[in-house]
């Protein structure tokens, strides 16, 4: 009986010492290697670089437009669409939609209705959420249809159809704006 008690006592002592040692080592390990990481949606250097590039292209286009070089300006804006923005970045989507809207207006001012419409429609297909930039793209789409209606023969089917589509596009824009204004109203208070 005494032997069993002694063995038990020794086991308890050894296990307690080992457990204490293990805890200390664990603490040292954690202190040495645990890192604090930023969340995946933290602002990144990659995003800032591409936003900076987009900013540069827009300003370069401004300068070129001030000299009346509309094609060259459009080329600069077009390059924004090829920038390697980080995937799933909300700012990237906003900036790309805005570049499309500007480029579509440039094409529209050149009378290139189809090119303008393609830019707008591609942007609306790529969007992942409702935003003021999407609403703006619908507005530009309405403007393209408005211009098409104006260029078509008065009273013609093409003119009527374009006017209907223009109204639909402006309505879509108004609807998105109203929805977003309601959603953002509590955040602005």
């Amino acid at each position, binding site marked *: 009986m005494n032997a069993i008690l002694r063995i038990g006592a020794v086991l308890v002592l050894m296990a307690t010492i080992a457990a204490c040692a293990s805890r200390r080592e664990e603490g040292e*390990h954690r202190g040495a290697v645990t890192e604090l990481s930023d969340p995946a949606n933290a602002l990144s250097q990659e995003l800032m670089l591409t936003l900076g590039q*987009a900013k540069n292209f*827009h300003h370069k286009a401004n300068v070129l437009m001030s000299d009346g070089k509309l094609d060259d300006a459009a080329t600069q804006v077009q390059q924004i669409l090829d920038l390697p923005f980080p995937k799933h970045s909300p700012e990237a989507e906003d900036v790309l939609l805005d570049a499309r809207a500007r480029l579509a207006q440039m094409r529209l001012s050149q009378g290139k209705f189809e090119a303008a419409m393609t830019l707008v429609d591609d942007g609306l297909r790529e969007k992942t959420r409702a935003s003021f930039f999407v609403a703006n793209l619908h507005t530009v789409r309405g403007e393209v249809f408005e211009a098409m209606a104006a260029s078509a023969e008065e009273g013609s089917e093409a003119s009527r159809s374009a006017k209907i589509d223009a109204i639909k596009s402006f309505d879509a824009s108004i609807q998105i704006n109203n929805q977003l204004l309601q959603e953002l109203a509590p955040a602005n208070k």
Partner: protein
Amino acid sequence: MSDNDKDGEEEFTAEEMAEAKRFAGKVDGLLGGDPIPTLMDAEQRELMVLSSMVASAFGDAELDAAKQTSIIDAAMAQAMDIAPAENDTKSQKQSVDQLATRRKRSKFVPAIVLTLVAAAAVLILYSRLESPATQVGQNSVAVRKLPKEELSRSSDQLVGQIKREASGHASSRIDQIYGSRMMGYRSLRYRRTVSRSTEGSNQ
């Protein structure tokens, strides 16, 4: 003159001698391992137990272990007032057996408790060594909570509704977006630098 006469005591009668002989026989029997006779008055029982103990203490005779246990258990049972009637031998034996069993079990309690504690300690140690938390701890990465300004997010709140006359003013809007995000990004970079220098000074 006999020895008894010298001490001033009367001689024992034959009946007393026979009684003493019977009693001595019972004591010898008890020392030899016989059970205590059940039909015996309390005075005689105590005398018999005492005699056997005296004989055991001063002589070569010794009660065997079972007998000792039996006598002690009987005495304990009486003391604890759980003994049944004297003539109820079966239940008396049962209660004595219960006591003996309890006492035997109680001997193992410290050993069992110690073994259980040791087993628990070993299990805790093992789980610490093998737990994924410890292994992950070597490469663990905790996600820092950042303020909204330092996160990538929609520009809607910053830009607001885009009026039709400002539809093509993408250049001014990207100035706004870039300026806002650059402030957040600088703040984030500063936080990282401070965090690293703090961690470095702690190590």
